[in-house]
């Protein structure tokens, strides 16, 4: 891990919806090649922040760069450098596996030959070679999830943003899913992931804890557990949430 170059740099990010402050002066760096966890209860402002970083939403104020590009006027370059997978499922159900991969490869400007060879490698790796012409609709949820992630990093982006990718998935599939994330990080892709599963937090290199639109803690899971004198991340979270006097469900 190269700790010296921040690939995402956020200074005083503020996002307001009317009077409601969804992101209150967020400041953090994400370094190249790390798995960065963005934690918090539902409604803490995680999704708002990730949408801003992906260019789906404009910040009210703040200085932000993603992959070295300014978020205000270099969105085109940013789009080419990132992958994105949302909590809503993002493959087309009425297309086959191969067609989905081809489509997403295509919109990221990959050449047809490239797509062909890459698809073969990917399906081989996922063990889905015999199912390439199956409609997504007919696949089990765990498969879809893995495919969706593989498609999100198919064009080999510098950063991949995952917005609660494992919500509604069983623990075994989640575990398998995290193996894919590790592999991607190992190949040099920076992973920015939001989640509200505290056990998942422990898989991250570093995590930032959000409560009510503010970052209340940012460190490696081990250090956070130490600092807050807790047995696991769940306890850390509960302590932090309580200390800011809010009623949140873990």
């Amino acid at each position, binding site marked *: 891990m190269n700790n010296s170059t921040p690939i995402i740099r956020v200074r005083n990010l503020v996002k307001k919806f009317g009077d409601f402050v969804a992101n209150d002066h967020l400041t953090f760096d994400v370094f190249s090649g790390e798995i960065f966890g963005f934690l918090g209860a539902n409604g803490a402002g995680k999704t708002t922040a990730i949408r801003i970083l992906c260019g789906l939403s404009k910040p009210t104020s703040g200085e932000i760069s993603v992959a070295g590009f300014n978020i205000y006027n270099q969105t085109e370059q940013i789009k080419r450098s990132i992958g994105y997978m949302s909590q809503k499922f993002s493959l*087309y159900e009425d*297309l086959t596996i191969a067609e989905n991969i081809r489509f997403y490869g295509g919109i990221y400007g990959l050449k047809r030959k490239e797509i062909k060879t890459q698809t073969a490698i990917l399906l081989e790796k996922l063990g889905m070679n015999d199912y390439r012409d199956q409609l997504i609709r007919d696949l089990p949820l765990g498969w879809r999830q893995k495919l969706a992630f593989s498609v999100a990093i198919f064009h080999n982006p510098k950063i991949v943003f995952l917005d609660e990718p494992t919500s509604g998935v069983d623990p075994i599939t989640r575990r398998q899913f995290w193996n894919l994330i590790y592999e991607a990080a190992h190949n040099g892709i920076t992973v920015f992931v939001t989640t509200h599963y505290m056990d998942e937090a422990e898989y991250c290199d570093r995590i930032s804890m959000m409560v009510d639109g503010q970052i209340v803690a940012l460190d490696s899971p081990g250090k956070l557990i130490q600092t807050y004198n807790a047995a696991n991340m769940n306890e850390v979270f509960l302590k932090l949430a309580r200390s800011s006097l809010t009623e949140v469900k873990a």
Partner: protein
Amino acid sequence: MNRFRGFVRKEFHHIFRDKQTLLILFGMPIAQMLIFGFVISNEIRNVGIAVFDQSHDAVTQKITDKILSSGYFLLEYDIHSQNEIGQAFRGGKVKEVIIFAPEFARNLEKTGTANVQIIADASDANLANLITIYTTGIIQDYINKSNAQHSMPMQIVTEVRMLYNEQMKGVFLFVPGIMALILVLISAQMTSISIAREKEMGTMEVLLVSPLKPIQIIIGKVVPYVLLSFINAVTILLLGYFVFGVPVHGSVVLLLAECMLYILLALSLGILISSVTNNQLVAMMISAMALMLPVILLSGFIFPIENMPKILQWLCALMPPKYFITIIKNIMLKNTGLLYVWKETLILCGFTVLFILLSVKKFKIRLE
């Protein structure tokens, strides 16, 4: 460009995989044509009537025969008393009763006037109106012809010619109307649903994060429907021509160009609808309610605009299909060129630009 082609290919996959939509897409125009062409018509044929002949003479017999041999009417009952009139109507089969006064022929001979009463079942006002006009027409014709032998001193004979539609075929009016309806439905409804679906499924976000430009996404969504709608327009014209004998007197190129313009208008309307909603169902409801009823009721398709109250006439002026129907009727039936429909064409262009501008303004490039 490659990106764009991939996107359009994906859209076609969506359309062709969804058999139900496909059926609606291509089945609806044909079904509508046949329904409107064969079933709904303003022409009358074999309407049940009853005759209460109190005179029973040669003249009333001749008039009755003339009425029955016209093909418009069918004799259900001969009525013999006043009481039976009400019964005949209540039976439901009889829509009109013709009553000849007693001593009909003699009165006609002696005084030059004789009374015939026509009672119609006005629970269906339009039909009642039509059949009484037909009946009086036939009786008038009889009188005129018999008078010709006597050579009256003064006589005005009106000769009516129905220009552009000599046989008064209802289908001549329905073909342009159905085109206006089908094209707006397919183009606007299908695009609005397909964009709303992407939003609902969450795939729109992924598209917006990708290097695809929003304008490419929109155009990619629209291209397949331009093609399909165009095929539909041609299908309707061919059906009209070969099955119902609706001619195309004017320039086919101009006709198709105007269809294209109207399709673009409908598509931009569809995009506008989808920019207001994130939900397929809502998109469908809006396009059904906002498009279907006005097109049917306020475009002059079925009800003549000239007979509407002023306020409704103004409302009609805001309905793009109205202008399309005018254009199509002019080109198809009257062989007029662009010179005569440029105003309507310009209005359609104006609507299209307006809808595009509005939707560009509303289309949330950055989803909030």
